[in-house]
């Protein structure tokens, strides 16, 4: 079936540095999402994105977070600066339409902030 790719699979950085997580969504999908899962906890919604704009974000989507998809390339999540509590697995997802359409998920990027 359609696949979402995430690059890298694991990233280790020092607190205060900037990190960019990359997502290659399904090619004809228009809606994009990021979710965050801290070890042992539920996966939680961060943000969704459509037509170049953030449509909805949760309280976890701090000011240090930003998303973009320049020119139909990767859908990225940037954290600048990073904090220790940003350590988690970040999952990207995409869907062809909005509403309750099926979201296709990537395998996740494990971010470790030291």
């Amino acid at each position, binding site marked *: 079936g359609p696949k979402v790719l995430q690059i890298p699979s694991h990233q280790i950085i020092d607190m205060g540095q900037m990190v960019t997580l990359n997502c290659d969504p399904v090619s004809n999908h228009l809606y994009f999402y990021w979710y965050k899962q801290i070890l042992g906890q539920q996966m939680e919604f961060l943000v969704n994105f459509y037509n170049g704009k953030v449509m909805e974000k949760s309280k976890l989507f701090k000011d240090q977070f930003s998303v973009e998809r320049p020119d139909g390339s990767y859908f990225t999540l940037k954290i600048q600066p990073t904090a220790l509590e940003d350590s988690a697995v970040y999952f990207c997802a995409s869907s062809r339409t909005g509403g*309750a359409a099926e979201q296709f998920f990537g395998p996740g990027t494990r971010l470790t902030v030291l």
Partner: protein
Amino acid sequence: AQSVTQPDARVTVSEGASLQLRCKYSYSGTPYLFWYVQYPRQGLQLLLKYYSGDPVVQGVNGFEAEFIKSNSSFHLRKASVHWSDSAVYFCAVSGVQQGTGSKLSFGKGAKLTVSP
């Protein structure tokens, strides 16, 4: 607010036995309910979804789930499990926001181990 509770974090069943993974949700409006499965080093894959109509929905690989509104539940079932069903299973709920993508709320997941 929307939330999902999966009370069984780890489940072990013998191959060929039946399976039920429990899910209870909280959502004030009309819920859209999903079960996803995650195999090691892969993304979540949709097993089945419920929007409306027949409360028993069929999914892939012989899985089914029943929506019971009075109990706010959406338990996943399979009549006979196979070793390849070993994975982590997530229940999720969403509402529909006009003009936006959906926002899934997940349970903590249930790790299923099928023993020979």
